[in-house]
């Protein structure tokens, strides 16, 4: 049995996948949805403000919503690991899964660069100053939409085990 199959067939994965309880697989999917709502939603709201919508809204206090993003992120990281484990032979060979992870990484990096600029945290590099902050916000919006799209499509494209 190969490595991916052994993850998928482990007792833990099998228990999650085959448990008839709504507290197993369905609840993990639900958590992944709520996490998406708060992570992508809060990021989008900050991006829209940076892009110039509602200019009277002071940006700096919006940094209080960054923990809301991280709350969503960690819910999704944890639920995401479980969702991949129970479907390892399909997910880990699906290029869309890696595209999704790539877009999430890009979204987090652009979010971080926006935070460095707007929320007054110490800058981690000079490179962020070269890119206009509105371009970063536009990129962040695009990366999140792309990540959600790639994630959703993992269920439809390349989803048959080779």
């Amino acid at each position: 049995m190969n490595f991916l199959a052994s993850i998928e067939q482990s007792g833990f994965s099998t228990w999650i996948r085959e448990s008839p309880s709504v507290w197993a697989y369905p609840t993990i999917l639900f958590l992944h949805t709520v996490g998406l709502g708060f992570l992508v939603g809060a990021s989008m709201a900050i991006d829209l403000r940076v892009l110039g919508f509602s200019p009277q809204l002071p940006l700096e206090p919006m940094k209080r919503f960054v923990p809301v993003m991280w709350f969503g992120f960690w819910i999704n990281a944890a639920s995401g690991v479980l969702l991949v484990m129970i479907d390892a032979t399909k997910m880990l060979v699906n290029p869309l899964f890696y595209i999704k992870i790539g877009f999430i990484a890009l979204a987090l990096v652009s979010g971080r660069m926006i935070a460095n600029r707007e929320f007054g945290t110490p800058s981690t590099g000079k490179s962020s100053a070269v890119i206009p902050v509105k371009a970063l916000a536009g990129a962040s919006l695009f990366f999140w939409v792309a990540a959600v799209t790639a994630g959703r499509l993992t269920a439809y494209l390349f989803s048959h085990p080779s």
Partner: protein
Amino acid sequence: MKMLIQSFATWLKATPLSSFVVESSWVWPAAETLHFIGLAMLIGVIGLMDLRLLGMAKRLPFAPLHRLLPWGISGFVICLLTGTLFFSGDPFQYIHNWVFWGKMLSILFAGINVLLFYVTGVFKNVENLGPGDDAPFGAKVIAGVSLVLWIGVMYLGRMLPFLGDAF
């Protein structure tokens, strides 16, 4: 009522829109993707306004935050339109599913909650909330109810295939 819903579903299933949704290989996945993006826009705007009223990010004045509302409404409309596509594609899997009706009822309650926010003067009260101002108790109740209902809507939507038998 049951008869009416049944015949509406029968009529809907025979429309070209219905066959377009189920026969196309891309409409359903594309609509699902948009449904999730709409969800994020809705939670991103409505959820953050709710959190502000509940006391998070209190240094934000409420009125300019409220000006992001068109994005939240757009998210809702995206979900409504794509949801209509799912329903048109396969109405029978929804009308016999109590989870679907629970979700619709929760959305209705969320709508009534929004209505109460605007017509009972709560919005007038919070419109002028400045940096650091605490929202009145009534506004906090409405914000809390809003959060619970929208999370409930996501829960029931996700449970359509599990508690009920739709996808």
